[in-house]
């Protein structure tokens, strides 16, 4: 089974984001070491789940989705982000996130790009 990236999309606050090169959402569960003294094996318990995300976009301020992201970055607000893997199903990953990083890069003999970092708050849901 495989799903083409041409079927995928991402939206922020209901606004679709255009020209997304890569969208990533990462769930992280820290492993808390509870190994007692005298033990010859390590023991762990699961910590609280956290999630972060990142987007690489081909930055263009004439795009509505990109200006929406700019607004979220400067307003420091949490908004609903939805990564749609494929519209049929649908297969989605949804969570409330704020933008913790917004980095724009313009390079010689290339196009302008921006990297957006996300910190999710609360539960990230699948499907």
């Amino acid at each position, binding site marked *: 089974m495989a799903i083409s*990236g041409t079927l995928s*999309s*991402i939206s922020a606050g209901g606004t679709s984001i*255009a*020209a*997304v090169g890569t969208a990533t959402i990462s769930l992280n569960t820290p492993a808390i070491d509870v190994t007692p003294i005298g033990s010859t094996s390590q023991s762990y318990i699961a910590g609280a789940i956290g999630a972060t995300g990142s987007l690489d976009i*081909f930055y*263009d301020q004439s795009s509505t989705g990109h200006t929406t992201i700019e607004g979220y970055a400067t307003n420091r607000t949490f908004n609903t982000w939805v990564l749609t893997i494929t519209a049929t199903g649908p297969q989605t990953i949804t969570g409330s996130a704020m933008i913790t990083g917004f980095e724009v890069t313009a390079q010689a*003999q290339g*196009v302008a790009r921006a990297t957006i970092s996300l910190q999710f708050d609360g539960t990230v849901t699948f499907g």
Partner: protein
Amino acid sequence: MATIESAVRAMLLTGSTLASAGIPDARVAHGYRLQDSILPACTFELQQAETLAIGSNPLKRVQCEIRIVAERTQDAIDFIDQIQTLCVAATYDSIPFNAVEWLNYSIEAATTSDGDENQPAELACYIDIYYTEA
């Protein structure tokens, strides 16, 4: 049906810039020209397009090589300004070129060999085209 090849040709034919400089539309061709065709002439080739973005209408990038073939080296060099002027972002043959990046150019000088044939001069211009294809 519009293709990236037809769009690039439309870009090169914009505003009769090449025609005014001595290359009529019929001498702008994708791929190759006949060896005995009239000079100067313009050909172009595209590398395989690369998809850069997710989504149903993704951003793509294609590398394009535009070659001007002329009898004398200076005649070929004289077309650099025209090619640079023509290679700009706009919509061509219904395909929007979001960005056109001029990379560089190279010149192969005209040469005369031992026989009675002359090798024409060639100006090769290299550009990257970022476009979206419906």
